């Protein structure tokens, strides 16, 4: 379970990608409401999207991106059956990746 859901559709030469990622995206700026202790930062710092082996998008994020991030983007090319990979690394060094097939 990578916690990454991807939907990629090719139409008229453009591939549209929509993705939902399960991640706490803690900014490090919040406090626990009961203990008043700071909640440690844990957020995705880098996200890479590859079509075949080519990087089409590289995102750098902070704790200002919403919990369980949503991301949509588009690129030229891509055909039904092609592999599309999204991977991320967070500030704690954890990572995940998921590959889908373009529809």
């Amino acid at each position, binding site marked *: 379970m990578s916690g990454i859901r991807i939907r990629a559709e090719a139409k008229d030469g*453009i591939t549209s990608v929509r993705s939902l990622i399960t991640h706490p995206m803690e900014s490090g*700026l919040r406090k626990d409401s009961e203990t008043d202790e700071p909640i440690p930062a844990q957020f995705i710092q*880098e996200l890479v999207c590859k079509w075949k082996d080519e990087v089409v998008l*590289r995102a*750098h*994020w*902070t704790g*200002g991106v919403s919990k369980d991030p949503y991301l*949509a*983007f588009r690129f030229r090319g891509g055909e039904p059956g092609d592999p599309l990979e999204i991977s991320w690394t967070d500030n704690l060094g954890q990572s995940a990746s998921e590959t889908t097939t373009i529809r």
Partner: protein
Amino acid sequence: MIDARRRRVLKGALAAVGVAFATGLVSARAVLAAWNAAAFRAEDPATALQGLLGTSEHTPSDAVRLQAPDDAENAAAVRVTVEVDLPNVRSISLIASGNPYPLVASFELGPRAEGFISTSIKMAQTADVVAVVKTDDAILSAAKRVNAAAGRCVG
């Protein structure tokens, strides 16, 4: 003969460990180098953009279309969509001007990517959301005021 084979095996194993170590180091360093702390930890938009793009100057442009709600129903998840009617878009960066760390995200677009990004951001208070777009020859922007008063304070 056994000694010679052992040496070969040992040599091979050491080489493999060396390669794994080296690639591990390289990728860890690449990630650290890529995340621009000077920009993402800046406490005002101008310093953040200076750190990210080398300049804080940007020109408002109709070619940058920024969609965001007038009133955020949930300040912890404000949907922001940026569409750029230009070729050669290199990057799209999102700023929530009133956040403790205003530079929220930056997207580097590969040669195939269209000038289009949609994501959700947190807003600490009512403020301008600014989309800053770097093309081959200009730094353009669009801004929109988003009322986040109804939302939770999140940073």
